[in-house]
């Protein structure tokens, strides 16, 4: 009956004990939230006037512009990182040693540097007056390296017989790559690619630091330029902007999960990799390969109860 192999189906005593834990746990969580809200309310951060500022057309226009600015930077960075990713992946798998060497060095260097350092250097060094392009360029360079590694993992997961068969038919290297390997690699890695796009979307918030007027920068401008009841409405602005961010990221994560589920239904082709947001510099070993479905279920949007079990691997 139990959902997990880590514990037995509870007997009468355990049911009582679990209920006590449940009540105590929920009370603790609720108390924590209640105390935070009360402390904030005490200092007047939750007063109606603080939220009233979002009724002004000017502030609404600011937020709409900021969403647009964030999406613009994200769109540029997404296209840039995917193009760069394909180029670098192909370069790293090239037969020519210099090309392979350049691609490998580029990938290894830029994905092990903090993104912020790269963006800041590009902004100060080359694109001081074009913060959007600096942000998009920095994001493209870093995420392009990650996407290249993801694609390389996908290409390597295509069974060797496929490319051998294509060569046997007399296809050229370019034809094998574009018509046999790439389509299958992209299809199997699509959830991982989209999860990396979620990371890209989150990282557009670094535009805050190079003064690009995206959502966070706008939030800070709104909060520090509007004075309500002698206080700055940081709390309400952060709540509103944070909700917008989380909603955008969750939508994109949901897309990744949907594609992953859809791909799993298909009976042909190689398996689809789980769409897991990798935290760091995903090396080929870290990227959950299409075969490693057993360790999955770690997708960003899976239900709590569903993922609670130990799966047989």
């Amino acid at each position, binding site marked *: 009956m139990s959902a997990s*192999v*880590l*514990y037995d189906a509870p007997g009468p005593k*355990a049911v009582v004990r679990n209920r006590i*834990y*449940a009540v105590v*746990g929920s009370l603790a*969580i609720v108390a924590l939230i209640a*105390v935070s809200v009360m*402390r*904030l309310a005490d200092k007047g951060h939750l007063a109606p006037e603080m939220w009233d500022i979002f009724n002004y057309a000017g502030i609404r226009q600011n937020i709409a512009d900021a969403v647009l600015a964030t999406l613009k930077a994200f769109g540029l960075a997404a296209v840039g990182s995917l193009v760069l990713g394909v180029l670098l992946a192909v370069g790293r798998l090239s037969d020519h040693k210099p090309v392979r060497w350049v691609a490998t060095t580029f990938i290894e260097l830029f994905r*092990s*540097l*903090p*993104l*912020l*350092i790269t963006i*800041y*250097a590009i902004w*100060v*060094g080359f694109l001081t007056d074009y913060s959007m392009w600096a942000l998009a360029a920095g994001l493209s360079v870093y995420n392009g390296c990650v996407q290249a590694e993801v694609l390389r993992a996908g290409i390597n997961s295509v069974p060797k017989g496929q490319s051998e068969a294509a060569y046997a038919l007399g296809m050229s290297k370019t034809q094998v790559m574009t018509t046999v390997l790439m389509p299958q690699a992209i299809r199997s890695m699509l959830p991982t690619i989209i999860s990396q796009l*979620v990371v890209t979307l*989150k*990282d*557009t*918030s*670094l535009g*805050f*630091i190079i003064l690009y007027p995206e959502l*966070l920068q706008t*939030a*800070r401008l709104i909060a520090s330029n509007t004075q309500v009841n002698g206080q700055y409405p*940081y*709390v309400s602005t*952060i709540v509103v902007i*944070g909700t917008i*961010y*989380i909603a955008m*990221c*969750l939508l994109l994560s949901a897309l990744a999960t949907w594609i992953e589920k859809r791909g799993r239904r298909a009976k042909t082709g190689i398996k689809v990799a789980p769409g*897991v*947001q990798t*935290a*760091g*510099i995903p090396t080929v*070993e*870290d990227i959950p390969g299409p075969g490693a479905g057993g*360790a999955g*279920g*770690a997708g*960003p*949007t899976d*239900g*709590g109860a569903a*993922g*609670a*079990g*130990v799966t*047989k*691997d």
Partner: protein
Amino acid sequence: MNVLLDNFPAFRDGFIGTVSITAVSSLIALVLGVVVAGFRVSPVPPLRYFGTAWVTLMRNTPLTLLFLIFFFVVPEILFPGMSPFVLGSLALGFYTSSFVCEAVRSGINTVPLGQAEAARSIGMTFAQTLQIVVLPQATRTVIPPLSSIFIALTKNSAIAGAFSNAELFGWQKLMSDKGYDIVPVFIWVAIGYLIITFTISGLFRLLERRMEVAR
């Protein structure tokens, strides 16, 4: 006109700042991540929901936003005038804890089913099963992903530099404000980060070798 030699004390402070904020926040992330992972597999539904909500929220929040929350909202809740170092390490630790939690949870999933079943059949409770049997075996599979999570944490600590912490990104900003050419500054900062990340991956490789067991 050598950036590094002229400003070596500041660079050294920045380097130490990055190392210490990384160390403190990885400790927070590790403890919190394991606890939340325990919540997520526990038999108590509210704790499970809390774990899921925690991971979903933290993973889909940009780190910069989390820093804003910690610097503008949290001091109002707790007490004003907390040091940027504490706030920065808390923000980084909380953010990274969601990734640690997921790594630990998928590590738990790789422990063979029979182990947990055997532990249960000799009468161990959930806490005992997890502490004595499952988690020690999960450690081995969790170490490689943890290594890349902590390297990511090191890189993310650059954002703390933008929030008035003395660390390497702060040094880069300071030097470019002072009018030094950005390229050598970038190279030195890059070298500083590479030293830290290579040390972390080396340490974890050592740990991996120590923990290796013929199975």
